[in-house]
């Protein structure tokens, strides 16, 4: 199971669904990976080539009944992406859809790209047989929080917790 990477989430506007965009939503292909990595780097400020390569192979190439890695293509380029999966029985929770990454090119925001991506992954979750979708982001990420709120998402019954590990090195090996 991937870590929830809320730093990847960067939605298509300051919290509101925009007009229907001229983009086509489709599953990611290997040729899209560089653009997806660049869009994420623009949003998060960190270029994570290995991370996205790994996610592509785990989410973009197999298991598409439960894992969804979608891109929005328009104007001859990838304008944004969304990634999620069905998670089963986490701490007794019934199977539900999880969105753990969404990002839209900064110059394509406010055009409904994020909304189109979100709608597409909701359809994927419905087809997978789940009736609830969840996500997780930091509480200071107001852009993304507002985006999900504007699409009707409410506080979940879960509470995220974390723990500083004394003695651990700061980076990931």
């Amino acid at each position: 199971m991937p870590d929830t990477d809320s730093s990847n989430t960067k939605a298509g506007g300051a919290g509101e669904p925009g007009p229907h965009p001229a983009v086509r939503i489709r599953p990611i292909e290997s040729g899209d990976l560089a653009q997806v990595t660049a869009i994420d780097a623009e949003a998060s400020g960190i270029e994570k080539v290995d991370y996205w390569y790994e996610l592509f192979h785990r989410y973009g190439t197999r298991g598409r009944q439960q894992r969804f890695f979608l891109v929005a293509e328009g104007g001859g380029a990838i304008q944004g992406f969304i990634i999620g999966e069905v998670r089963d029985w986490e701490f007794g929770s019934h199977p539900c859809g999880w969105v753990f990454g969404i990002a839209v090119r900064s110059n394509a925001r406010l055009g409904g790209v994020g909304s189109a991506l979100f709608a597409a992954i909701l359809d994927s979750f419905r087809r997978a047989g789940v009736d609830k979708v969840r996500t997780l982001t930091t509480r200071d990420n107001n852009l993304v929080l507002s985006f999900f709120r504007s699409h009707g998402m409410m506080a979940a019954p879960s509470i995220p917790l974390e723990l500083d590990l004394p003695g651990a090195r700061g980076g990931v090996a």
Partner: protein
Amino acid sequence: MKLQTSTMLALYSVVEAASQSGKQISAAEIAERYGVSAHHLAKVLRELGRAGLVDSSRGVGGGYRFSGNTRRLTLLDVIEHFEDIGARSPEPGTAQTDVGLAITSVLSEIDEIAKATFRSITIDTLLKLVERARASQAQRPGQEQAPPVPLPGNASR
């Protein structure tokens, strides 16, 4: 979580005015709908006017018109004109004891979550919540309906 009465009146007023799509709403209408003091509401509406969130006009047919952007204005923006929900006056003993400091850190955590929640909900999103609640009520016949908030569709953007 409990907000002060003035803050709640401000939220009622802003949402009611925003749902009217450029039309005016009178203080009396809002007061009657929510069963609140018209006098208190008038003071709140004046404050909202000073904050630039509503325009007012006097005379026959006068009232208040929403003048913000429903897709930008958040609940926190409105609330902060009336109270600081993050400001916690020190309780006796908190600063002097380890237990007090630990409890204060938990309370601060709750305050931060509350602020993030209010910050993430725009007036437009709240109007959608009202719409959903109404649709949900309509599917459950026999239950008493909440007072109507005229909704939104072409609310001021």
